[in-house]
């Protein structure tokens, strides 16, 4: 169990890959903060998004309650026999990590019972079976090893849902792969990660009162990426905005947008999708900013199409 943030995470980029390839069920709190440069320290998602392909399960949290609940579930998810992967539990630096919120805690014994004891099949200090780990592996074996690792990530989706089910029974707090908020009959939707979901929900409620069919999808599990489930939840929208609190500097948009667009391909690939980069380096995002996104979506819906899909939200002129 460990914790990190921003440049500390980036410094250990190499170890992230090695830990997941060694199938080590580490649980790590990643308090999302901007990666240098320039040196910044405030919240965005450039740290964990940069690590998205390192073979770690990534679970994001809107609030401190979610961060707490996800961390407890994360231990069991990572240690499950069909998974055996490290888990990164992400939440927004400062915005939630340094916020004072009331949360419901579980009793220590309850948590211990829920998490269970970790009994690895093979381990370095097994007196009955000395083992060697971390070999040099050549083209004769690495390909198959990576395929097995990929299977663990595929298996994780089912396990995440099973663990969430048990967690619900214990606490009454329900978790899925993502949260769909007023999405069922929505025409205008946004996809968002972490604390901005709270801000955006307030905007959705306001718009709903005005009779505008707004909704949102909040990512919980980013790795494994639940592409089919997300596409099914979004496919009936008339216009969609994907909110990225990280730049991938690809020249065409952020990392979340790339995932969402690829998920929609074949299911709703005619849907106009626009991508907003927002909040980099801790730039505050207010309800007015989110309101602007829905206003833009309304325009896009009326028009039925969108050309400039790679946008910055709240950039000073």
């Amino acid at each position, binding site marked *: 169990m460990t914790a990190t943030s921003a440049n500390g995470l980036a410094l250990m980029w190499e170890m992230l890959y090695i830990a997941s390839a060694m199938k080590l069920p580490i649980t790590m709190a990643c308090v999302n903060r901007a990666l240098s440069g320039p040196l910044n320290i405030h919240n965005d998602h450039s740290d964990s998004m940069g690590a998205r392909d390192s073979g770690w399960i990534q679970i994001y949290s809107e609030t401190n309650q979610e961060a707490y609940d996800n961390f407890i579930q994360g231990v069991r998810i990572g240690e499950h026999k069909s998974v055996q992967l490290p888990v990164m539990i992400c939440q927004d630096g400062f915005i939630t990590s340094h916020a004072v919120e009331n949360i419901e805690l579980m009793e220590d014994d309850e948590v211990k019972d829920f998490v269970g004891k970790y009994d690895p099949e093979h381990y370095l200090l097994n007196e009955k079976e000395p083992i*060697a780990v971390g070999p040099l592996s050549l083209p004769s074996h690495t390909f198959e090893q990576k395929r097995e690792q990929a299977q663990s990530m595929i298996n994780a989706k089912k396990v995440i849902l099973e663990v969430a089910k048990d967690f619900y029974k214990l606490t009454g707090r329900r978790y899925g792969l993502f949260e769909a908020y007023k999405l069922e009959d929505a025409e205008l939707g946004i996809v968002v990660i972490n604390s901005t979901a709270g801000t955006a929900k307030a905007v959705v409620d306001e718009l709903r009162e005005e009779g505008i069919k707004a909704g949102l999808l909040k990512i919980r599990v980013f790795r494994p990426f639940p592409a089919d489930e997300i596409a099914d939840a979004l496919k009936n929208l008339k216009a969609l905005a994907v909110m990225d609190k990280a730049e991938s500097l690809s020249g065409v948009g952020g990392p979340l947008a790339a995932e969402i667009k690829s998920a929609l391909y074949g299911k709703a690939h005619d849907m106009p999708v626009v991508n907003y980069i927002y909040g980099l380096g801790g730039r505050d995002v207010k309800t007015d900013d989110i309101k602007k996104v829905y206003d833009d979506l309304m325009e896009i819906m009326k028009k039925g199409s969108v050309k400039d899909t790679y946008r910055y939200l709240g950039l000073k002129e």
Partner: protein
Amino acid sequence: MAYSLKEVMNKPERLIGGHRMCAGCGAPVAVRGVLRALKPEDRAVCGAATGCLEVSTFLYPYTAWKDSFIHSAFENAGATISGAEAAYNALKRKGRIKDEYKFIAFGGDGGTYDIGLQSLSGAMERGHDMVYVCYDNEAYMNTGIQRSSGTPIYTDTTTSPAGDVLQGKQQFNKDLTQIMAAHNIPYAAQTTLTADFKDLYLKSEKAIYKKGPAFLNVLAPCPRGWRYNTPDLMKICKLAVDTCIWPLYEIEDGNWKLTYKPRKKLSVEEYLKPQNRFMHLFKEKNLHLIEKIQKHVDERWKELLKKCGEV
């Protein structure tokens, strides 16, 4: 009990044959020498930084290590083995483990003097009961003989080539053994392969069985990078100590002790000559550089004698 080469050599090997290290390489000889100091009934977790030793002794699906072994990356052998030691202490405290385990990390000079220094320094400072062994072959040999901070001055390497303008590496190597001694750990020592392996054995025994962190710096010649005849491995090691280029000494609980004093201190030329990495120094125009090396070695030797209370 007096040291007996025969007895020591009859102990079962813990790094077995079949690995892919080069003929005439000092590293596996050094590793076997260190591991012989383990009591047969004791278990060990060994680890290695990325380097020749790691890639040649643990090539999936084969391992030459009889004990549990872990490699994670180039720069973190110190952290990796200290983590295994911390896990052992936790499991032992909980009664989940009974046997006695010892923890030994191995790294080349690249993984120790350079890339892994931070990780090593941290492990020593935290006081883990472990040994870190540097098999020092004075350059990044695994990747093709690039200079490291352990490479001696005027050495010809692929990144400090001797040519018309520059005569090999332009900087002195750092004194890692003394840097580790400055951590005030219970035991730090410098050794190499000697004819009876006694120096390596006794220092390894102390390093392994003295409680707390220990560091061993073992000069381990590399026939590819140093360009000597492979059967001359032991001869090169002997010349290194007899010229006082690689003095044998230890620092135990803060006490400095010279463990070998050559009867006749040889000139550095004798050590440089059989190694083609120094070949360019023997051109007429470069002979003054050998003098510079000699002067440096003499100064360092004098300082060491003083520290060891020999003068």
